[in-house]
């Protein structure tokens, strides 16, 4: 292996305001390490002047990689990627020794000095094993969003996307959207615009290839064909439950409310979460908000909510309190109640405390996890993990709402707020996510991604099964490959591969081992 | 007459047959077999000797049967598929026949993991239906399974087991039919507690006319205690014990008496079912109570063999 040339930068303010690190001796220590070409002290790495100094040094000394002893990579990594690129290096050819937050700030002076040396040694050892990582900044090829859905949400998402400067197409099995009959003005107008502006394709998704910004879609059904789009939004409405006299789904109830017709005097809302362990907070929220709205509008009516789990957590807790203050009765039942339809529908169930119950109601609303077949089949085609109601699992709901597990595929959860205006804001938010992708100057891909050594692969599918993002696939040569455009760099495929055919950039097995070795080499304190 | 056994005669004559079970001892002494013979003498038309029941090594059923014959009682030997391949099976049958044994019950046998030597290698060269086929061929054609002729054919009255309480329920009657076609002359059922299911099964048996082709002996088992009832209900695969019976045993002041009473009631009921030609009483480790059950159920078996 040819000699590596490593430049080391030590940030003068890494010691913190306390100045507790002996940076000079740190510099002396690191300069003796193998393959280190130079050590430079930089006044402040995060300042422009500091970066200019670093850039100059990198250009002058012809190093092919560098190490920075400063503060946390979590805050400095992106800045240093840019710097590496400017210096004509692969943007991942550097490592960081976090001698500030993880040494200077947390240990006594003597301990911190020793540990900083260790950390820097580890960073150098890891740096020696770096290899240029695949990296691309790809300009999105298409600014079209394909909206797959069946009703209100699909129409709104398409319109919101168009409002943000994207093109939108709507894919719906029947060739027309199923829209509520009664709409307030806030919704009617954008819907009309959407119908005018977004072409509708009759059919369903048969396959999707390509990468975010350039998906190739095959549709089947009434219209079979191919199309190109940059992003996909899944925007299915909640399914109406099977309707019989006195029983309705949420959409129908919303229509009833919007129509101004008299509201039922006694109402039972069944939140159907018995089918599986799946508990939909959104369905519960819908039920509670509906209860409050009804009691506000007609205080003489009675509302009961039946569900398996009546203890709400987080923000739902305040919703529940509000509903209870408005006189909503919560009934816990351990199995799906039986509902007898009729002008007076009857709901029979067993309360674990009270025992058998029979509740009469003018109307029963079924809210819950009925399988949306359209959504489920779309999930299947896209390889997305599904909830029991057929909706795709969202990527970390709280932090990346609206994103599915697959890059470039977005999701509108049908169990969003019940009033029309809020449905719209949901759709707008998701459309904005798609716009952020497709209108960006470039989609960054690569870096710490997994890579297969085909010769070692047995096509056992371990990687395909474990990847949350659908990045690995098996080629026609029957070898696994990882689409780095989709890889999020978690490394689970690397660990699970029984043939050790996968490794990853920036966190290779050899690097992890080298860091461990460097950390442990020194005689114990 | 296929074998000319007492059991065969009783069944042929249309009398209600009684058989009872004797578990051979874990001993090289046949003393307990003789004792049970004494206790139950005159109570049944024939006595079943289990074959390493629950996969525990015990005195062989053939040897125990010979002891019983010496005592003047008629044995039914059980022969499982677990412990011998087809060669050993046929050889044992020839020997048993030579020693005067006429009734054989063909069963697959409890899996060895129930026994006290779980690590044993099981045989299962043939299954219980194939065992019937082999034994029938020996008797009817005077040949071993491969076709080679025997000098003297064994005279056998062939039995099979049937479990109306195992699953799939729909297949249980079809399986009985297969056993009949394979050569079963009589059938002993698993212990009956769930009378309702048994009657449903018998109905299906009658629909297929099987009750006319084979003698069905209904199995009964007197419960000794509430604990035994629970054990049978929860731990024994292929056994259905209704809660009502468990409750009766639990509520009883004298559970042993209650167990006998339930058993007697069951026998009386079973006797009234069309197609049930007898009862098979299983009282493992409680053989001494069998005479009382037989007496109280007003069964009048004409006890001994000549």
């Amino acid at each position, binding site marked *: 292996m040819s000699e590596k040339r490593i430049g080391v930068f030590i940030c003068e303010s890494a010691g913190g305001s306390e100045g507790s690190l002996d940076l000079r001796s740190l510099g002396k220590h690191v300069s003796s390490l193998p393959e280190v070409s130079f050590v430079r002290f930089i006044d402040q790495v995060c300042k422009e002047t500091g970066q200019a100094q670093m850039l100059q040094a990198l250009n002058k000394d012809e190093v092919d990689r560098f190490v920075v002893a400063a503060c946390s990579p979590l805050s400095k990594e992106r800045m240093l990627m840019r710097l590496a690129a400017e210096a004509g290096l692969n943007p991942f050819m550097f490592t960081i020794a976090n001698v500030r937050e993880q040494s200077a700030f947390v240990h006594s002076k003597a301990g911190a000095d020793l540990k900083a040396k260790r950390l820097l040694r580890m960073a150098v050892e890891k740096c020696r094993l770096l290899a240029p990582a695949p990296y691309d900044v790809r300009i999105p090829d298409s600014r079209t969003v394909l909206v797959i859905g069946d009703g209100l949400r699909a129409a709104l998402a398409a319109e919101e996307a168009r409002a943000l400067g994207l093109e939108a197409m709507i894919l719906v099995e029947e060739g027309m959207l199923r829209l509520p009959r009664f709409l307030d003005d806030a919704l009617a107008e954008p819907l009309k615009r959407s119908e005018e502006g977004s072409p509708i394709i009759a059919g369903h998704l048969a396959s999707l290839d390509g990468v975010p910004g350039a998906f190739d879609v095959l549709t089947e059904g009434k219209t079979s064909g191919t199309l190109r789009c940059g992003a996909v939004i899944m925007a299915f409405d909640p399914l109406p439950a099977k309707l019989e006299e006195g029983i309705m789904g949420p959409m129908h109830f919303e229509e009833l409310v919007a129509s101004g017709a008299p509201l039922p005097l006694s109402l039972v809302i069944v939140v159907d979460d018995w089918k599986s362990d799946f508990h939909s907070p959104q369905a519960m929220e819908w039920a509670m908000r509906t209860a409050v709205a009804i009691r506000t509008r007609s205080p003489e009516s009675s509302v009961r909510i039946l569900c398996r789990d009546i203890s709400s957590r987080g923000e739902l807790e305040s919703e529940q309190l509000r509903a209870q203050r408005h006189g909503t009765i919560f009934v816990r039942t351990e199995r799906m109640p039986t509902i007898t339809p009729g002008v007076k529908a009857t709901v029979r169930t067993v309360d674990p405390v009270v025992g058998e119950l029979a509740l009469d109601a003018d109307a029963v609303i079924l809210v819950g996890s009925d399988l949306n077949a359209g959504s489920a089949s779309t999930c299947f085609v896209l390889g997305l993990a599904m909830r029991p109601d057929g909706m795709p699992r969202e990527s970390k709901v709280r932090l990346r709402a609206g994103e599915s597990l697959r890059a470039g595929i977005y999701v509108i959860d049908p169990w969003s707020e019940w009033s029309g205006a809020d449905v719209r804001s949901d759709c707008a938010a998701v459309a904005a996510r798609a716009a952020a992708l497709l209108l960006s100057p470039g989609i960054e891909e690569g870096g710490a991604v997994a890579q297969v050594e085909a010769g070692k692969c047995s096509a056992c599918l371990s990687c395909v099964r474990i990847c949350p993002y659908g990045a690995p696939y098996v080629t026609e040569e029957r070898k696994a490959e990882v689409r780095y455009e989709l890889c999020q760099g978690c490394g689970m495929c690397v660990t699970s591969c029984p043939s050790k055919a996968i490794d990853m950039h920036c966190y290779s097995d050899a690097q992890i081992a080298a860091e461990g070795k460097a950390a442990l080499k020194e005689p114990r304190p | 007459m296929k074998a000319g056994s007492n059991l065969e005669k009783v069944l042929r004559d249309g009398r209600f047959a009684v058989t009872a079970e004797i578990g051979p001892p874990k001993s090289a002494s046949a003393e307990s077999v003789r004792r049970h013979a004494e206790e139950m003498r005159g109570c049944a038309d024939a006595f079943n000797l289990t074959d390493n029941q629950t996969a525990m090594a015990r005195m062989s059923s053939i040897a125990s049967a010979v002891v019983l014959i010496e005592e003047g009682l008629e044995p039914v030997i059980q022969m499982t598929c677990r412990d011998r391949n087809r060669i050993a099976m046929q050889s044992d049958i020839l020997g048993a026949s030579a020693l005067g044994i006429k009734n054989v019950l063909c069963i697959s046998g409890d899996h060895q993991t129930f026994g006290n030597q779980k690590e044993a290698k*099981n045989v299962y060269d043939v299954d219980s239906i194939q065992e019937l*086929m082999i034994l029938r061929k020996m008797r009817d054609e005077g040949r071993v399974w491969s076709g080679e002729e025997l000098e003297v054919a064994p005279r056998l009255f062939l039995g099979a087991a049937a479990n109306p309480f195992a699953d*799939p329920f729909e297949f249980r009657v079809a399986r009985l039919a*297969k056993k009949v076609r394979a050569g079963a002359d009589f059938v002993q059922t698993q212990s009956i507690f769930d009378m309702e299911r048994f009657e449903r099964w018998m109905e299906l048996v009658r629909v297929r006319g099987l009750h006319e082709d084979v003698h069905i002996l209904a199995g009964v088992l007197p419960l000794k205690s509430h604990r035994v009832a629970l054990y049978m209900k929860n731990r024994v695969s*292929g056994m259905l014990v209704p809660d009502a019976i468990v409750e009766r045993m639990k509520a009883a002041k004298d559970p042993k008496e209650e167990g006998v009473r339930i058993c007697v009631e069951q026998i009386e009921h079973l006797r009234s079912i069309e197609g049930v030609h007898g009862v098979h009483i299983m009282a493992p480790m409680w053989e001494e109570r069998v005479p009382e059950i037989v007496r109280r159920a007003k069964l009048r078996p004409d006890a001994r063999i000549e």
Partner: protein
Amino acid sequence: MIIGEQKPLQEICAMLEGHQRILVTGCRSCVAICLAGGEKEVGILAESLRLHSDLRGRDWEVTEFTTERQCEKEWVRELSDLVAKSDAVVSIACGVGAQTIQALFPEVRVLPGLNTSNMGAPEEPGVFMEKCGGCGDCVLHLTGGICPIVRCAKGMLNGPCGGSQNGKCEIGHDTPCAWEEIYHSLERLGRLDLLEELIPPKNWLPSRSGGPRRIVRPEAVLTREEKEMRG
């Protein structure tokens, strides 16, 4: 595929007592896929053995190699140099692999690090079920595509024994009753009539009872002349 399971670590360590230069070898075929003996497991076992040696001052030298298919001589020959430097080879391929190594390298101790269990398939990730008993005379056409020879604890051929209840086998409630499955499979296929057939005692000759089995494909067999011609 062939399903196996590594022997307990202590057992492997005990077998290795008295040896010093140890080659741990796995296989990229079945045992890799059933997560028992691929390169990853070779790495873990080798590292465990090194740790064992360090802890007890044994001075073991442990090397690692994973063959493409340990049942084939051509691939096993790749081990030549490593075997020459070893006094024991731990094979975590199946028993076939271990024997192939021993046959090719008669001078070295070959130790099994894996218990070869059965021919089966992954049921779900991490769960492997026995599916085929290799009886040499397949009956799946009679049993709705479910093998009663190995999936029934008693290998019954004429229907379930009396211990079948609620779809479970009498030997344990996590073992499905194969005959229950066969019944429902044939029910779905509309072929319950097949269950009425009396299946006679099976010919076990093509099975283990016929001695070690040897399959010959005449069209692939080389005559003595051909062997000579091809060197």
